[in-house]
């Protein structure tokens, strides 16, 4: 065993990378759920975002266009969910599961000709002097721009929900859609926008995996990250900063367990492999003891004439 081989700076830097896809997807889903909609299709939207972003990046040569395309791809797929649940008033749980299954299959179809290709790389942030600072340089100033976008989105969503009128309306729709409707708010329209925002975020998260974290395209490469993001929203009590904490915790333990393995720590590998799930759940369950419950209308179907 040689723990000195683990470099804490690189460890923190790489856990941030591992956490970003989860964070992006979780923030999107948080907004969706705050609007009172339960979309279980995160995994499907992520993988479609992953291939959309990958394909456009390869075709255009620009990762920026790719990330834009991944957000559009995720949002387009979420329109299917909109159609099912907001127009046809179908059951949200079933529709969301269908969306995931459809997304996984559809992405393999789209990705047939992109297997084994290397995408153009997105440059990392490189601020003279700041990036070269010891310790905090690589952690704070040495990442790709999308990672910062994830953190900025968290802050923006938090501020939006807490301080703005838009956030108040969104929460009202999620807490009691009948009351919000009686006050004259367009419940369905607000929800559609929230769902599309969620789809775009999930798409970005997927593209982060296919363009930055891996980077290549393979079928089913999101490998359950969407489900983790979904669970994280609940455990984080629908609070953006807790979602960030949870995502970093999960990413952190994932990276740490690989580090411990490589350093030869004598804990059976199987325990290390399950530790990210266990630790994240335990910590967030403790945090959420303060009775901040789910949005009251979560998962309920709204129809104006009822």
């Amino acid at each position, binding site marked *: 065993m040689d723990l000195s*081989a*683990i*470099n804490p700076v*690189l*460890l923190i830097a*790489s856990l941030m990378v*591992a956490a970003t896809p989860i964070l992006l997807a979780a923030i999107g889903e948080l907004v969706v759920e705050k609007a009172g909609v339960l979309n279980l299709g995160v995994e499907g939207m992520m993988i479609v975002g992953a291939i959309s972003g990958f394909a456009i990046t390869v075709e255009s040569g620009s990762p920026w266009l790719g990330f834009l395309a991944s957000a559009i791809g995720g949002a387009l797929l979420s329109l299917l969910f909109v159609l099912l649940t907001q127009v046809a008033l179908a059951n949200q749980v079933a529709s969301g599961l269908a969306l995931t299954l459809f997304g996984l299959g559809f992405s393999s179809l789209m990705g*047939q000709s992109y*297997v*084994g290709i*290397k995408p153009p*790389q997105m440059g990392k942030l490189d601020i003279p002097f700041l990036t070269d600072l010891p310790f905090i340089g690589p952690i704070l100033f040495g990442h790709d721009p999308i990672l910062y976008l994830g953190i900025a989105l968290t802050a923006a969503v938090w501020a939006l929900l807490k301080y703005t009128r838009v956030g108040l309306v969104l929460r009202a729709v999620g807490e009691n859609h009948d009351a919000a409707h009686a006050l004259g708010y367009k419940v369905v329209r607000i929800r559609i926008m929230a769902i599309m925002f969620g789809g775009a975020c999930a798409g970005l998260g997927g593209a982060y*995996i296919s363009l930055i*974290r*891996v*980077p*290549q395209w*393979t*079928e*089913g*490469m999101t*490998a359950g990250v969407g489900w983790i993001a979904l669970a994280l929203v609940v455990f984080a009590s629908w609070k953006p900063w807790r979602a960030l904490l949870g995502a970093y915790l999960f990413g952190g333990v*994932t*990276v740490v367990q*690989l*580090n411990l*393995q*490589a*350093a*030869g720590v*004598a804990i*059976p*590998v*199987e325990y290390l*492999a399950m530790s990210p799930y266990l630790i994240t759940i335990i910590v967030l369950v403790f945090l959420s003891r303060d009775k901040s419950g789910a949005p009251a209308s979560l998962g309920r179907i709204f129809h104006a004439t009822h």
Partner: protein
Amino acid sequence: MKLTSLLATAALGLGLATAAVAQDKTKVGFVYVGPVGDGGWTYEHDQGRKAVVAEFGDKVETVYVENVAEGPDSERVMTQMALDGADLIFTTSFGYMDPTINVAKKFPNVKFEHATGYKRSDNVSTYSARFYEGRAVQGTIAGHMTKSNIVGYIGSFPIPEVVRGINSAFIHARKVNPDVQFKIVWAFTWFDPAKEADAAKVLIEQGADVILQHTDSTAPQAAAQTAGNVITFGQASDMSEYGPMPRVSSIIDDWAPYYIERTQAVMDGTWESKDTWDGIGAGMVGIGEISDAVPADVKEAALAIKASLADGSYHAFTGPIKKQDGSDWLAEGETADDGTLAGMNFYVEGLEGDIPQ
């Protein structure tokens, strides 16, 4: 009356014709553990399948199923293939071992070929390649090339085949560089690009400047390329799109001659259950071109090892070798027998850590 008999004759003729065609065509099925586009293990098996098609043309019909999970679900896939009239089925991953045996019992007339396993029956053959010979060449290059004296190894599952590879690479790295250390991470997957990339990054962060992988995707290559100054080896396939750096060489599985031979045997009715385990000499294991990133003397040493393995003058496990716990395994000059190699479940002396059980 006339019309009916005409129709009947026609139908009979047609029936006979179809039957004749069906008899002519030998149907060969392939069960793959990953997608054919993984650029590694499954890709090479599919190249073998294509070679069978190219060799026999119309006389053969091939079918394959990708991404088949190891374990019970593979039984369903194999059963379906057998029901659809396959004459010969190649199951191409270690985890298909028991399912293959189970399905083979139900279809005594269908021939099965299981890759990398050790259970056989009257209609189940096993075949594998001596990848550890390729690992010996890799270990030689790795031992010469590493500057940090840390070699990272991404293991898939702790099965004999993978342990053999680790031991072989380690023995030969130590032979040329007594200070070399191996850091081993078990990914518990054959194919999960995100996980493989993370594992490679972790090993690089902990100082490894050579990454060996026993997983199937090119993700570790991409991670090494990003890190710079780290060398890797193509696994199962050449992965030459990552050369000359980080990929400096590779182990290439060449299944085509074997697949053609066995298909021919089924056609001729001479197929028999047997165990095939071929290495560099027979051409089942190829060593991908050693790139210019490797100094000429190192390349020479690697090619010398390759040549002596190919002509049989050298065995990759030649004593004296001790087990990890210090007990004797092979005496001076003694070579390992295939039985021990096939069931290898111990590290050799010098490796750290335990094999997960």
